[in-house]
């Protein structure tokens, strides 16, 4: 036993990877580091400048919407045959981005992936803000948004009810449930951290605000027991929900008979695409945030690399979806389907289709190489490319399928107007404004969950069990 011979110790693969939390932290330093961003860190000039830029873009959105309400959807580029333009493209894009948050918080929680603990909070916040942006579009594209509540079933003097066989009504239920459950999930996760913030606050006003939000949380073992059950059940409920939302969104298309929409690959391929763009957005935000707020201890290379791997995997599923679409265009022998394939590759929108293939399929293959997966710069660039690519995917699906369908006499082209662009860029501004505020007013990583990652948090129970 006690010999001096050096036995080469084999390091398990688990330990060769970057840790999920850098060593040297205690229960207290985690709380201190995360809460100090909110409580102590002075507001920097860069933050104010960024906020002003994003807030101006939000105001541009309000202007574009104001003019839309005044004039109607005629100010947009939509025409016949392209009756669905930017509004639906942006809706699908935003709701897809929202999927990463719930995937990280629900599915990875069920799979006991401990690396989710430091990115779930802001990924969930991102989900909420993305769903908020997404929700604007179906609302304003109705033409008379002040009557949008007609989509909900409620007893009314018109003796009218919604038509429950329509995917558009399913969408109303799917998206509103998704938004609500994401909010509930996020808030339940926040409660213990709000208590930490309350107890760390030095200013009475701030203590009072966090105190009200924490609702008197005191960390009782009975409370934690119910809390963990509730959290697990929420994760269990949110898991099928997150898979269902984009499935239902894809039904908006797949249930129709338009070539390019009428396909059974849509649900899985939409869900994979949603998670793909969601993780791209997580990386796009996490990389700058961890640099600016020096969160490298909590958001380690392990998180970034794993997100890169998820992107690679979901990107390949998306590539499979494109492949099947192309294969079916040829194999089905259906004139309209094979024309759609030809039109995508050679038609007037061909450059966009090729850019889509490049940004969603070819360029992300770089993530096979560890060098790219572990470089924050390249990960950020690839994520940005994927976000653009996923937007193009929705553009191709919607515009290219609609612009040349069955009858040549009904063909047309789609030209987005400045109002389309202002609305789209405006929602990006609104999304970033909300993120900008979020990182300064709430703990951006889950303090309680990070603490459970420390070795000190692990206990062993005594032999005897008390009845």
């Amino acid at each position, binding site marked *: 036993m006690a010999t001096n011979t050096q036995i080469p110790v084999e390091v398990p693969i688990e330990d060769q990877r970057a840790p999920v939390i850098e060593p040297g932290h*205690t*229960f*207290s330093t985690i*709380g201190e580091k995360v809460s100090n961003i909110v409580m102590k860190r002075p507001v920097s000039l860069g933050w104010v400048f960024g906020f002003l830029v994003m807030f101006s873009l939000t105001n541009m959105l309000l202007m574009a919407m104001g003019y839309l309400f005044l004039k109607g959807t005629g100010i947009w580029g939509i025409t016949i045959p392209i009756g669905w333009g930017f509004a639906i493209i942006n809706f699908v894009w935003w709701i897809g981005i929202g999927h990463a948050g719930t995937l990280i918080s629900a599915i990875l929680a069920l799979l006991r992936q401990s690396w989710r603990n430091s990115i779930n909070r802001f990924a969930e916040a991102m989900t909420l803000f993305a769903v908020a942006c997404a929700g604007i579009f179906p609302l304003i594209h109705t033409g008379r948004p002040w009557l949008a509540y007609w989509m909900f079933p409620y007893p009314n003097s018109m*003796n*009218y*009810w*919604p*038509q*429950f*066989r*329509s995917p558009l009504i*399913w969408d109303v*239920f799917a998206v509103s*449930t998704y938004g*609500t*459950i994401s909010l*509930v*999930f996020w*808030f*339940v996760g926040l409660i*213990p951290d709000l208590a*930490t913030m309350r*107890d*760390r606050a030095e200013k009475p006003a701030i203590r009072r605000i966090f105190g009200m939000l924490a*609702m*008197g*949380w*005191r*960390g*009782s*073992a*009975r*409370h*934690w*027991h*119910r*809390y963990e*059950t*509730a959290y697990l*059940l*929420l994760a269990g*409920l*949110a898991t099928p*929900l997150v898979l269902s939302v984009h499935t*239902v969104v894809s039904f908006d298309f797949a249930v129709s008979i338009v070539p390019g929409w009428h396909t059974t690959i849509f649900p899985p391929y939409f869900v994979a695409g949603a998670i793909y763009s969601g993780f791209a957005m997580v990386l796009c935000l996490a990389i700058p945030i961890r640099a600016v707020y020096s969160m490298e201890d909590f958001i380690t290379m392990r998180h970034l690399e794993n997100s890169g791997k998820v992107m690679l995997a979901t990107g390949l599923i998306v590539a499979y979806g494109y492949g099947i679409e192309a294969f079916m265009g040829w194999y089905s022998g259906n004139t309209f389907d094979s024309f759609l394939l030809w039109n995508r590759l050679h038609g007037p929108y061909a450059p966009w289709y090729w850019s889509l293939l490049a940004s969603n399929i070819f360029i992300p293959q770089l993530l096979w190489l560890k060098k790219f997966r572990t470089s924050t710069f390249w990960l950020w660039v690839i994520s940005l490319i994927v976000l653009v690519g996923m937007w193009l995917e929705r553009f191709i699906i919607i515009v290219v399928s609609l612009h040349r369908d069955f009858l040549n006499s009904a063909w047309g082209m789609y030209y987005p107007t400045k109002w389309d662009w202002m609305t789209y860029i405006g929602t990006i501004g609104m999304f970033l404004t909300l993120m900008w505020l979020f990182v300064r007013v709430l703990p951006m990583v889950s303090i*309680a*969950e990070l*603490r*459970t990652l420390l070795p*000190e*948090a*692990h*206990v*062993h*129970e*005594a032999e*005897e*069990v*008390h009845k």
Partner: protein
Amino acid sequence: MSATSLENPIYGLMAEFDTPQELLTAAEKTHGAGYKQIDAFSPFPVEGLADAIGFHKNSVSLVVLIFGIIGGLSGYLLQYYVSVISYPTNIGGRPYHSWPSFIIVTFELTILLGGISAAVGMLALNGLPMPYHPVFNVPEFARASDDKFFLVVFSTDPNYDAARTREFLRGLAPRTISEVPA
């Protein structure tokens, strides 16, 4: 209880520990010593702690099950009522009771009610929001959400006796012992 404790009611005795392991061991010993009305506090969930204080089952899952079923049933019945009874419309020649089309809304409402009831049920069973609670009267307790771990023996416990319980808690080697005013 004596007259003095009625004038200055005591909620219980609180012992403070440094690590979750110490708290867990202390909770097990206290429960084993016959104190059944106790509670433990920690900044994050500690595995087995609820068991150690004798809290084995909670009814959150039952609440979620009930509300999930209510959500699903109301979703389906609503669609049935609307599409078959109140507002029957011929959509593409489908039957009025076209159940495959009703699956999604039924599913979403199951999740919606189940999910909301998980959060609201958890808070309600925990008695939250609770603006005042005696444990916050102890200044050390501010670190219960930070890095300290607390065990409280309630004064309502039949075995509770100010002096003897304090002596017992001292035997568990806590950092501090404080009396919690109600």
